[in-house]
């Protein structure tokens, strides 16, 4: 059961591995606080819609399932949008149209179609949580890189006398502005994707290497395994 949760964070991370839901990830990742808000919204919508779809899966006819899923998702997005406008107006202004665009966020429809419409309630619930948390963590990473290098600040929620903005000495006077602009998001995600690919490949080649070493120790007559087993 736990694996249903954890796979969304690492092995099937929506942004870095299966590349779903990139539009909001690119657009709102200019400030850390936006990433937090967006993550919370997505987790809520994902949970609500996966629970509903998982419960209703036997009643929805096959042919019109996509429109029905979208209507369910859109209702939850409306809830998030209205709540955000009421209780966090500045966040809602920052995220702008992208809260409403959660409706067509591929993660949510993708999980509904691939998972919730086939599995039991408890599994769908864990899957939704895992995917939502994985999305939020990825968004936090991207926005932290973009904000620190692109504007030299870290913007968090304002609590009491703390106004929520941490200035980074040195960087805040001369930031690499391009990272805060549109192209920066694409470049940062591109390089992060490459990093995660590389990590994945290194892990895979290590397991191959270990297996070869084990088989070599078990049967030494088969000859030495080829060096570091493709450490490319």
């Amino acid at each position, binding site marked *: 059961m736990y694996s249903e949760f954890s796979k969304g964070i690492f092995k099937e991370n929506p942004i870095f591995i299966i*590349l779903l839901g990139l539009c909001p990830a690119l657009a709102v990742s200019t400030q850390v606080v936006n990433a937090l808000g967006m993550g919370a919204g997505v987790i809520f919508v994902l949970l609500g819609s996966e629970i509903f779809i998982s419960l209703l899966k036997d009643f929805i006819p096959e042919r019109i399932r996509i429109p029905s899923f*979208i209507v369910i998702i859109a209702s939850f997005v409306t809830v998030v949008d209205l709540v955000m406008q009421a209780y966090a107006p500045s966040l809602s202004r920052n995220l702008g149209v992208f809260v409403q665009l959660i409706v067509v966020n591929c993660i949510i429809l993708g999980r509904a179609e691939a998972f919730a419409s086939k599995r039991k309630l408890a599994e769908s619930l864990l899957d939704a949580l895992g995917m939502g948390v994985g999305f939020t963590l990825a968004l936090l990473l991207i926005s932290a890189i973009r904000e620190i290098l692109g504007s030299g600040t870290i913007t968090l929620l304002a609590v009491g006398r703390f106004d929520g903005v941490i200035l980074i000495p040195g960087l805040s006077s001369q930031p690499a502005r391009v990272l805060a602009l549109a*192209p920066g998001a694409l470049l940062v995600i591109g390089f992060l994707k490459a990093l995660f690919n590389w990590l994945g490949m290194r892990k895979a080649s290590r397991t191959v290497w270990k297996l070869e070493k084990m088989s070599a120790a078990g049967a030494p007559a088969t000859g030495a395994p080829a060096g570091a087993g493709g450490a490319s």
Partner: protein
Amino acid sequence: MTEGLFAFGVFFAAIFTNNILLTNYLGMCSFLAVSREIKTSVGLGMAVIFVMTCTSVINWLIYYFVLVRFDIVYLRYIAFIIVIAAFVQLVEMVIERTSDVLYAALGIFLPLITVNCAILGASLFMVIREYTFLSGLAYGAGSGIGWALAIIAMAGIRTKLNIRSKVPFGLTGAGITLIIAGIMALAFMGFAGMITIT
């Protein structure tokens, strides 16, 4: 006259300075998945232009004649997405019945379009910026053309890339595509300031 001129400006701005894909990042998922070959990109691009133009018009009419009149503007994205999903389904059925050639070329892309955020995004931006009917039409068509332009250019670059260059292992696939898109976005930033739309 000025109205027509403004619509014309909106049309060009939507293609170049405010390209919906490269400045608003809308429609990224299908952009990454389908930009492998020029032929399929042209197919998807055409489908997007057609659906985006038509749904912008329908959504404009629905927004101003139904939602605003009955004061239920907060239901706008449910209404818009239903229009888009229904329209796409309808077009798919019509194409399937009438033209095999067209269905083979565009039909397979139509289901992808329902969840293409660029379509819904264009409708939402249109009502948020309070365009008139004519500018709304120009915006829908321009955004579609801009999106198609970006995906076809990307497909061209990726085809060349496959033949000519050695991409580092970790970057192959989505990584290099995203970085190319970033560089394309930098290039499109050169258009900024030529026309500004509000």
